[in-house]
C-alpha cells in the first residue's frame, strides 16, 4: 500500500488534471518528495493515461477517409 495517507490519494486526480490551487500543488509536491510510494503511484498514473490513449488508438480506414473527402467535395 502507499504511505497510508488518504489525502494524497484523493489529490491524485486533481493534481494530474492541474486543477489544484498553487498552495495545494506545493503541498502535494512537498508530500510526494518525501513519500516514494505515493510518488511512484503518481508516476504510474501518468504513464497509465498515455498507455490507455495509445492502446485504444485505431487509425481511420482509407475507405472512410475517401468517403469524408467525397462529402467535402459536395460543399
Amino acid at each position: 500500500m502507499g504511505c497510508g495517507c488518504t489525502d494524497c490519494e484523493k489529490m491524485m486526480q486533481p493534481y494530474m488534471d492541474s486543477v489544484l490551487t498553487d498552495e495545494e500543488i506545493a503541498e502535494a509536491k512537498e508530500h510526494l518528495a518525501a513519500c516514494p510510494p505515493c510518488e511512484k503511484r503518481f508516476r504510474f498514473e501518468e504513464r497509465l493515461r498515455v498507455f490507455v490513449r495509445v492502446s485504444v488508438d485505431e487509425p481511420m480506414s482509407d475507405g472512410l477517409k475517401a468517403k469524408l473527402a467525397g462529402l467535402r467535395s459536395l460543399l
Partner: protein
Amino acid sequence: MSDQVYRVARRMVSTREEAEDLVQDTYARAFRSWQQYTPGTNLRAWLLRILTNLNIDRGRRVQRTPDQQPLEEGDYYLYNRLESTMSDDNPDEDRVLERLSQNSVVDALAEVPHDFRDVLVLVDIGEFSYAEAAQILDIPVGTVMSRLHRARRILKQQLAEKAMAA
C-alpha cells in the same frame, strides 16, 4: 480533425463499422447544417456535439440504472492490485504497467457505462478540455469532472480485474 473525431467515435460505439457510419453521418449532417455553425466558435466541439446527439438518437446507448454501476475503488487500487501479483518487493512503475496488455485496455474501456465513458473518451482519448466536453455533452463542467473521476476509477477497476484473470 477528422482523426480526432473518429478516435472519439470509435470508443463511443462497439464496432468499427458503427464508428465509421457515425462519423460519416456526422460530417454529412455538419455539411447540411453548415449555416448553423457560428464562424470563430469551436468547430471540433460543434462537430462532436452533432456526433453525440446522433449517437443518442440512434438509441445505441443502453442506460444502466445506478445499482448496476460497478463499485468503485480508490485511485491507487489498480497499482496496488498489480503490484501484489509481482514477486519483486518494490518494482518500478514501468514494470507494474507491463502487467497490462493493450487488448485489456480496449475491453476494460468497453465495460465503463456510457455516461462515464463518453467523458473519459472525450478528455483522455480525444484530448478535449473539460470546457469542450461540457459543451459537447451539454452538461456543467463540474459534472464533467465528477464523471471523469468516476470513469477513470471504474476503468482502473476493470483493468485490475482483467489483469487478475489473465
